[in-house]
């Protein structure tokens, strides 16, 4: 992996104000969990909504979207990507570095609060299951959202459509779409590591892992190819 690119990417991400957007959702998740637990109500009644409805369906994809489109998309927007591209580097090195940073930051900012939630709700094993699920989903989402920032000029919008329409809406109505939903893979991984009644899996574990890899590798290959043909639009001509 190219550490120089990874370093610049991480500094760019932390230096931008939109990085602050990453924190409200994990904080909200923790506050909700602590509040619900303090009421003494059985977790069975509230934990699925908090973990699945809030953690996996909203917090994780939103963080992945902000980070995944930020690592390359914001450099494309402001033109700084040219400095990195005008170097004799194979394009896969650039994409791999960006992917590692995106997946790493997404996994870290979502897995830590989810681990705490898992421990509070059930057990350390459940916490680990949630954290591993976050890591797997972070890899899949990062592949998709990174590729989107090279495929479309509005990666955040398209990413939101995927999360809100495909995963949240169609995933509930048309069960067939769940096979192509990273959200569902996270549930499958959680259920496989810590089977309980709080989280229900709809996709088998092998399929979930294989499809996560497809999203990650497919997204990376698409991004590498698009980056090879990256064109700068002429502004004055």
């Amino acid at each position: 992996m190219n550490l120089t690119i990874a370093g610049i990417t991480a500094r760019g991400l932390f230096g931008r104000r939109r990085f602050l957007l990453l924190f409200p959702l994990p904080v909200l998740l923790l506050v909700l969990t602590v509040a619900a637990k303090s009421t003494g109500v059985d977790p069975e009644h509230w934990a699925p909504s908090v973990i699945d409805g809030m953690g996996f369906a909203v917090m994780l994809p939103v963080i992945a979207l902000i980070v995944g489109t930020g690592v390359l998309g914001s450099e494309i927007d402001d033109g700084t990507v040219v400095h990195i591209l005008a170097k004799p580097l194979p394009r896969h090195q650039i994409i791999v570095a960006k992917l590692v940073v995106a997946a790493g930051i997404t996994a870290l900012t979502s897995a830590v609060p989810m681990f705490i939630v898992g421990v509070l709700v059930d057990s350390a094993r459940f916490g680990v299951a949630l954290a591993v699920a976050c890591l797997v989903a972070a890899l899949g989402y990062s592949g998709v959202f990174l590729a989107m920032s090279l495929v479309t000029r509005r990666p955040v919008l398209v990413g939101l459509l995927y999360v809100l329409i495909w995963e949240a809406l169609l995933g509930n109505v048309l069960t067939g779409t769940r096979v192509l939903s990273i959200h569902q893979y996270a549930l499958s991984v959680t259920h496989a590591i810590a089977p309980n009644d709080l989280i229900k899996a709809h996709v088998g574990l092998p399929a979930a892992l294989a499809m996560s890899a497809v999203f990650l590798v497919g997204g990376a290959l698409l991004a590498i190819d698009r980056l090879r043909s990256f064109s700068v639009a002429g502004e004055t001509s």
Partner: protein
Amino acid sequence: MKTVELTNVSRWYGNVVAINNVTMTLGSGVTGLLGPNGAGKTTLLHMMSGFLAPSQGELRIGGEPAWRNPGIYRHLGLVSEREAVHGFLTAWDFVVASAKLHRLPRPEEAARRAIGLVEMADAQDRRIETFSKGMRQRTRVAAALVHDPEILLLDEPFNGMDPRQRLHMMELLHQMGGSGRTVLFSSHILEEVEEVSGTVQVIVAGRLAASGDFRTIRRLMTHRPHVFAIRSSDDRRLAVALMNEESVNGLDLNQAGLTVRAGNYGAFTRALPKIALREGLRVRQLIPSDESLESVFSYLITA
């Protein structure tokens, strides 16, 4: 010596032709890419630097195709027009990062040399976002020079620089050209190009309008007919008097006044006050009507 070779290169966007069948070879020394705004200079530089595919034709950098070939950046330095830089980095970090991305054996040493070349050593530890436009530009030039490239492409490099910085940048380009490197810079300012380069490529409306020695082209430009719109106390009498003036090629008298086509700009503007004085006429208005750079360039196409 590495060359930049364009063979029948065209680029179009839908129905709009941005670059039309341009053929040129750039060798060692400094070449100015001159043309009015919107002529296609930036498009041409984007294609030369591998950031845009030609719609037609062939473009080679040091014998290698420029498109989809990151290998060309081993020999190529690029200073693009868009001044975006990673503002959160210091100038030092930025140039060292460039050196590392080029996989130079001693990145710090290379960065120190490049920063010294653009005289930015004093400000190298400041974040780039605190810099003036000229300082940013020099930092970008340092990053482009860090691997000592044999080909250097610069898009409007003097933008935002103060006169001293401009002079220094011109010297730097001279030195690079003099040491056998291929340097191409674009500009829409005639005087800028005149000061830096002996060879120019003039591009107008996407076409290569003129190419070669600057002085020859400049002569063509200054010897073209100049058109003046004149109003005086008696246009008809002034017209008669002007017909005897050698520098006047033609006249047009109408209700709006007098339109004069002069073959020699200097001779005509010196002669007009004398003639008016001799004839006892008062010149109320004298407007050179085609002095825009665009008209100079378009004259070149027809010359």
